[in-house]
């Protein structure tokens, strides 16, 4: 095989077929995928959760992961956030002509490892190649299917007054790790993206309590936007305390340098849970036993005041409204 992806690799002919056989099946093969039918045939019992996401991250490779790992974790996490056990994913690649084959191999390998760790199978896929300039190196779309166990009812609108809010770990790692790689914003830091599959964490939490009302992963827009989403959706108020929010020194420092607010920085391996107050300590201890919840903390509660709004008590003792992120997160000098 050549060391670059050509338009022919996406056109369904011999090169396409070779790519699928020699790379995709080799890495990702399983009984469903190997059949190579136009659609995967699955047998499922129970309530099904179904999600889709596209991944356009740049740079493709970053400390702590790559677009492949992100694609699997993102979909696994979306399913987990409704309490589903993730089972199957689809994988669609849109590759820019000229993309380096060794890079593609690395990404597919990453998808394989991540899927294996999460216990999901890639059962169907698609590969397209577009003209140089029509895509930024590689775009990935995944769709995912999971089964929701009986009795599990999790949704943004289920937050109840008196519930407590748990955050699974320090915020801002992913967004800052990515930003530090971008041209013009390079900093040296040991910070890595927190990109991770959270399905085992969620399974542990659901095992500990039936009073988990909301789960959400604070990806783009950060913790602030996520909290606003379900404050709006459940028409409840949210009160959080700044000094309870876990934050690494290095993320804090990078944010100070760039003039960013960590509340708005993306995370890819964290979740926010709204839990009935009687069960919150139980859930918290369970979370701390899982490697993705070691630093979990209660950061606030659902209140009747200011419905639809999120208010934070600052370290300083004053209160301020935390609104949703508007537009892009931009570094500033002033």
């Amino acid at each position, binding site marked *: 095989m050549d060391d670059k992806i050509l338009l022919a690799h996406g056109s369904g002919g011999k090169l396409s077929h070779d790519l699928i056989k020699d790379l995709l099946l080799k890495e990702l093969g399983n009984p469903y995928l190997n059949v190579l039918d136009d659609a995967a045939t699955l047998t499922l019992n129970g309530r099904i959760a179904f999600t889709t996401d596209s991944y356009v991250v740049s740079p493709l490779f970053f400390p702590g992961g790559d677009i492949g790992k992100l694609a699997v974790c993102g979909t696994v996490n979306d399913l987990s956030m409704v309490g589903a056990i993730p089972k199957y994913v689809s994988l669609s690649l849109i590759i820019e002509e000229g993309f380096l084959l060794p890079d593609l191999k690395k990404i597919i390998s990453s998808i394989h490892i991540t899927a294996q760790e999460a216990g999901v199978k890639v059962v169907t896929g698609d590969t397209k190649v577009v003209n140089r300039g029509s895509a930024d190196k590689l775009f990935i779309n995944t769709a995912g299917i999971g089964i929701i166990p009986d009795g599990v009812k999790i949704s943004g609108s289920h937050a109840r007054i008196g519930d407590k809010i748990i955050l699974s770990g320090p915020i801002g790692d992913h967004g800052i790790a990515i930003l530090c790689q971008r*041209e*013009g*914003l390079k900093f040296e830091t040991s910070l890595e993206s927190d990109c991770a599959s959270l399905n085992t964490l969620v399974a542990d939490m659901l095992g500990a309590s039936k009073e988990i009302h909301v789960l959400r992963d604070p990806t783009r827009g950060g913790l602030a936007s996520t909290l606003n989403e379900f404050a709006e959706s459940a028409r409840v108020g949210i009160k959080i305390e700044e000094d309870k929010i876990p934050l690494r*020194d290095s993320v*804090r*420092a990078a944010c*100070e340098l*760039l*003039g960013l607010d960590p509340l708005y920085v993306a995370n890819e391996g964290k979740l926010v849970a709204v839990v009935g107050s009687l069960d919150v300590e139980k859930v918290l201890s369970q979370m701390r036993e899982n490697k993705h919840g070691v630093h979990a903390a209660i950061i606030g509660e659902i209140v009747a005041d200011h419905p639809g*709004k999120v*208010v934070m008590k*600052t*370290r*300083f*003792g*004053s*209160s*301020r*409204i935390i*609104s949703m992120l*508007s*537009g*892009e997160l*931009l*570094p*500033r*000098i*002033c």
Partner: protein
Amino acid sequence: MIKFLDEYRDPELAQRLVKKIRNHALQGLRLMEFCGGHTVAIMKYGLRQLLFPQVELLSGPGCPVCVTANADIDKAIALAKKPEIILTTFGDMLKVPGSYSSLQKVRADGGDVRIVYSAQDALEIAQGNRDKKVVFLGIGFETTAPTIAASILEAKHREIKNYYVLSLHKLCPPVIKTLLDSGEIKLDGIILPGHVSAIIGAYPYEFIPLDYGIGGVVAGFEPLDILLTVEMLIAQIENRKPVIEIAYRRGVKPEGNEKAREIMDMVFEITEANWRGLGRVPASGLTLKREYQDFNAEASFVPEAMPAKEPEGCVCGEILRGIKTPRDCELFGSCCTPEQPVGPCMVSSEGSCAAYYLYGGENNGR
């Protein structure tokens, strides 16, 4: 724990200082700050509410993004549209609306607009793209101007011939003077900029007590710094001794940073500048000196723009002069929001309107 930062955010010490300030007999003192960083800090820590009614904190034209005139933004946009130009800018300017468009919209239309953290990064882009012309959008006051000057000197030294600066830099002391001369608002004291003063020192502000009989204190950016500044201004007022003092002593020397000024003076000369809300203010801006004209974007590209116009109903100009607050603006929160800003006071994260919108409510609304 970030050293030289966190110690100045201690809530207990702050409470004590606030109590001391509130114990003063004086009421309704009007203090104005001229620095976007101070606007943000005051809102973020709820200081305005904490000090009212003893002290009324007003926001002046201290946000370099907010005071950039539409005509100047239009010039930057015109340059960004040219296919041979890579327009590099600080993040602050990306969403600012000009008369007809914004850099963000130009980028969406295919213009090469790139955000950088430093002028150094723009230099590297110039170095790596010899077939293009890299224009750096130079905004900021005396804090930033020396860094841009340094980048030009470096470009000259490294023979980087495709690096240009569109200088929209402005100076602080002249705008303070213009505001005080206008007599539009009565002030009892001035909270002087922190990092501008790190460069220019305290002496350039001496005219304030001399000509206007009010004092000024150079303030840092942490809540304790600002509270200390207010306390010092109150002491001056009580003793009827208006002077220029420095509260931010760990960052500012009375003589400022001579080396930085030397570098700034090598490259820039003072000129008249166009300030949003204030119009043309003499000797308040910076332009490249003749010997550096090769780096002057305006001289090299003659950006043509359609006649500048101001958006209807926008009162950014009056907000910048401290005679109106964001809540006095009809557009605030309805058709002018951070997602769809009409004027720069809403776009800039340091603009009064953005600060009110993001941090206001609870303890900040008045």
